[in-house]
C-alpha cells in the first residue's frame, strides 16, 4: 500500500470546557474518497480544519505529505497542497469579482499575474463558469457561489480536497452539476456530508465520528426490491399523461440477501 497523504494519530481537541475529539486516528491515501459522517456538533468541521492547521490539537500528531506538521510554517505548505472547501461560500469568496477570487490563491503561491489569470480562466472553463468571470461575487446565486468557491480551491491545484458539506443548500440541478464535476476529479478527497446521494455516488470509504473518536464505517448495499407510492406533484386540471385510480399502491419492500 502506498504511503498516506494525510495521517492523524491520537488527535485530541477541546473547545473551552468541552472535549470534542478524544483520540482520533485516520489516514487518507491517494485515490481515496472518504465520507466523514457524524451527528451535529460531533466535530467534523473541526477535524477538517485541524488537518490544515487552522486549529492546534491538544495532543497527537498530524503528518501530511510525508512530514510531521507542527507550526504555522509547516501548515502553510499543507494548505497549498490540501484545498479546503468551506461550508458557507460567503466565507470563502471575499474578493470583489469572481476572477479576482479565483486568482487570489495562485497569486499567493507565487505565480505571476499572467500565469494566475490563465490558471483561473482554465479552471473556470472546466467548471463551466467562464461567463461568470467578470461578475461581482455577492450577486451570484447560492449554487453559483458554491461552484466558484470550488474553483478558488481547484485553482491552487491541490493534491487533496477537503470539503465541508459541499452540497447543502443546493437545489437538485446544482447538486447534480457539482457531483458530476467532483466525480471527474482525480484528487483524494475527504468530505463531510449528510447527503446520502453524495456519499453513495462519491465515497469509496466512510468513517464515522462519534463521541470524539473515529470508527471505520461499513458501507454496504443490498438489493432492494420495492414498490411504493411516491409523491408526485403536477398542476391540478392539467393532463399529466396518466390516470389516477382511487387506490394508491401500498408501500412494500423486501430486502433480499445475496
Amino acid at each position: 500500500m502506498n504511503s498516506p497523504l494525510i495521517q492523524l494519530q491520537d488527535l485530541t481537541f477541546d473547545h473551552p470546557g468541552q472535549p470534542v475529539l478524544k483520540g482520533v486516528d485516520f489516514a487518507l491515501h491517494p485515490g481515496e474518497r472518504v465520507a466523514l459522517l457524524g451527528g451535529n456538533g460531533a466535530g467534523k468541521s473541526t477535524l477538517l480544519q485541524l488537518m490544515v492547521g487552522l486549529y492546534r490539537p491538544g495532543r497527537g500528531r498530524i503528518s501530511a505529505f510525508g512530514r510531521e506538521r507542527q507550526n504555522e510554517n509547516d501548515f502553510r505548505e499543507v494548505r497549498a497542497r490540501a484545498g479546503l472547501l468551506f461550508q458557507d461560500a460567503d466565507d470563502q469568496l471575499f474578493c470583489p469579482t469572481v476572477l479576482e477570487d479565483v486568482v487570489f490563491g495562485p497569486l499567493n503561491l507565487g505565480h505571476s499575474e499572467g500565469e494566475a489569470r490563465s490558471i483561473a480562466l482554465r479552471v473556470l472553463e472546466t467548471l463551466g463558469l467562464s461567463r461568470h468571470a467578470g461578475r461581482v461575487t455577492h450577486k451570484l446565486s447560492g449554487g453559483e457561489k458554491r461552484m466558484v468557491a470550488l474553483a478558488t480551491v481547484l485553482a491552487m491545484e491541490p493534491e487533496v480536497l477537503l470539503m465541508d458539506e459541499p452540497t447543502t443548500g443546493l437545489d437538485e440541478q446544482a447538486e447534480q452539476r457539482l457531483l458530476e464535476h467532483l466525480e471527474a476529479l482525480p484528487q483524494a478527497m475527504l468530505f463531510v456530508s449528510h447527503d446520502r446521494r453524495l456519499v453513495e455516488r462519491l465515497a469509496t470509504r466512510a468513517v464515522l465520528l462519534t463521541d470524539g473518536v473515529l470508527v471505520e464505517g461499513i458501507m454496504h448495499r443490498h438489493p432492494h426490491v420495492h414498490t411504493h407510492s411516491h409523491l408526485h406533484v403536477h398542476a391540478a386540471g392539467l393532463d399529466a399523461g396518466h390516470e389516477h385510480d382511487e387506490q394508491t399502491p401500498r408501500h412494500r419492500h423486501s430486502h433480499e440477501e445475496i
Partner: protein
Amino acid sequence: MLPLPTLTQERENHWLDRFDPRLRLLCALLFALTTVSLQQIPLLLGCLLTGLLLAWQSGLRAGPLARRLLLLESLMLLLLLTLPFTVAGETWFSIGPLNASGEGLQRALQILLRANAIVLVLLSLVGTLEPVTLGHALGQLGMPRKLVHLFLLSVRYIGVLFQEYRRLRMAMRARAFVAGSNRHTWRSFGWLLGMLLVRSLERSQRVLRAMKCRGFHDRLYLLSENRWHSRDSLTLLLVALGCTYLLILERTL
C-alpha cells in the same frame, strides 16, 4: 443584495460607461473644487444647471434622487434660516432685535447652490458607478491600498450582514414581536445588535481562515480591466478648460 435602492435602472452601453471610471472620478473632483471656489451667484447657477443636465443625461431615476436631495435640503433650510441673522452686514429686514443681512442671504444662497450642484454631479458621475468599479478606480488612482481593500470588503459583506439582520428580524416578527416604547423592545433590539456583532466577528474569523487556506500572507490583489483611452484624456482636458474658464470669469466679472 444591498439595502440601498439603486439610483439608476439596469442599463447597458450607457454613454457614461464608455469612459474610464477614473475619468469620472477626476471630473467630479475638478468640478467640486471649481464650484467651491466660485462666489458669483450667476456662475453658481450655471454650475447647478450643469449638475441638473448631467443628472438628467446620466439617467438617474427621479424618485430615489429626490429622496437623497431632500436629506441635503433639510440641512440647507437650516442654513437659509440662520445665516442671514448671523452674518454681519447691511440690514435687509429686522424681526424685533434680530437683523437679517443681505450678505448673510447671499452667503446662504451660495452654499445652497454649491452644495446642490456638487451633490448632483457626484451622484451622476460617481453614484452611478458599480461600487466594485469605484473601488478599482480608487486603487488605480493611487489611493492607499488598505483603504481601498477596506472599502471593497465592506461592499462585499454589507449585503451578507444585512441578510443576517433580516433573518434575525424576521425570526423576531415570527414570534409576534412588535416594536413599542418599552423595556422589552429596547432589550430585544439590544440583543439583536449584540447578536449581529457576534456573528460578524465570527464571520470575519471564518473569512480569515478561508483566506489562510488559500495561502494569504498579508497581501491582497486587484485586477483591473479599466483602460484609459485618448477620448478620456480629451474629455479631461475639456473639463479642465471649462473649469479654468469659470475661474477666470469669477475674477473678471
